[in-house]
């Protein structure tokens, strides 16, 4: 099976990305609605605690509706960034599906993905710190763990962007060779 062009592995992966994007949009909408509802309505935290215990979540939450809302909004922001990454990947795979990967625009898309991955790590650290402060009486020690794999992936993506930049330059040279 070919890697590029119509009916290739790239087109199959683009289809998978389309499904993932749809699921992420739905999740984002649900999170925003839940955050809005959490702000307006009293939350039965005993029910939430039972649900979380049943699903294996260890943290116990105190009766802080606004903090619960902030948590949901932070999760919505995380999902939003992931959605942005998936959207950039969809555009890249669109060019792979038509068999034309070395477009200059793909360089910017890859860099955007790199910055977004770094942003996800920053959001993760921020959320850990805030939850550690907000639930310091209930939550176990929140330790700052440097995720080397994630940061390695960020660097790899930036290097890939430079590879695509060189590819786009060579493609332009080839196009303008008569």
């Amino acid at each position, binding site marked *: 099976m070919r890697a590029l062009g119509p009916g290739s592995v790239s087109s199959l992966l683009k289809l998978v990305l389309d499904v993932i994007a749809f699921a992420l949009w739905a999740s984002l909408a649900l999170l925003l609605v839940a955050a809005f509802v959490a702000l307006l309505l009293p939350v039965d935290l005993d029910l939430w605690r039972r649900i979380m215990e049943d699903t294996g979540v260890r943290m116990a939450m105190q009766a802080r509706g606004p903090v619960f809302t902030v948590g949901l909004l932070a999760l919505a922001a995380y999902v939003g960034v992931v959605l942005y990454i998936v959207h950039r990947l969809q555009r890249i795979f669109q060019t792979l599906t038509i068999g034309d990967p070395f*477009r*200059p*625009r793909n360089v910017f898309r890859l860099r955007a993905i790199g910055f977004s991955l770094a942003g996800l790590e920053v959001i993760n650290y921020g959320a850990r710190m805030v939850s550690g402060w907000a639930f310091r009486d209930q939550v176990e020690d929140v330790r700052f763990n440097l995720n080397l794999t994630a940061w390695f992936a960020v660097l790899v993506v930036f290097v890939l962007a430079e590879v695509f930049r060189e590819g786009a330059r060579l493609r332009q*040279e080839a196009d*303008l*060779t*008569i």
Partner: protein
Amino acid sequence: MAIRVQLDRLLVARRMSPSELADRVGLSASNLSILKTGEARAIRFTTLDALCRELDCQPGDLFGYESGSAEVLADDPGEDELE
């Protein structure tokens, strides 16, 4: 680029249209236009060979060099719209 492709002069001398030359040489009209307007970065020997054959000229008749011409390097994002 300081290199100038002097196709127009030769086309007039041979009483040939650009589209006719493109057909004879095996180039598309757009590629011939890129060559004529100086946007081309390189030319293949096979193309040069075909041009000299159809225009009955020497390679030196096709090109001129204008010293002191500024070279503009293009480095824009390309044709895709900003997202």
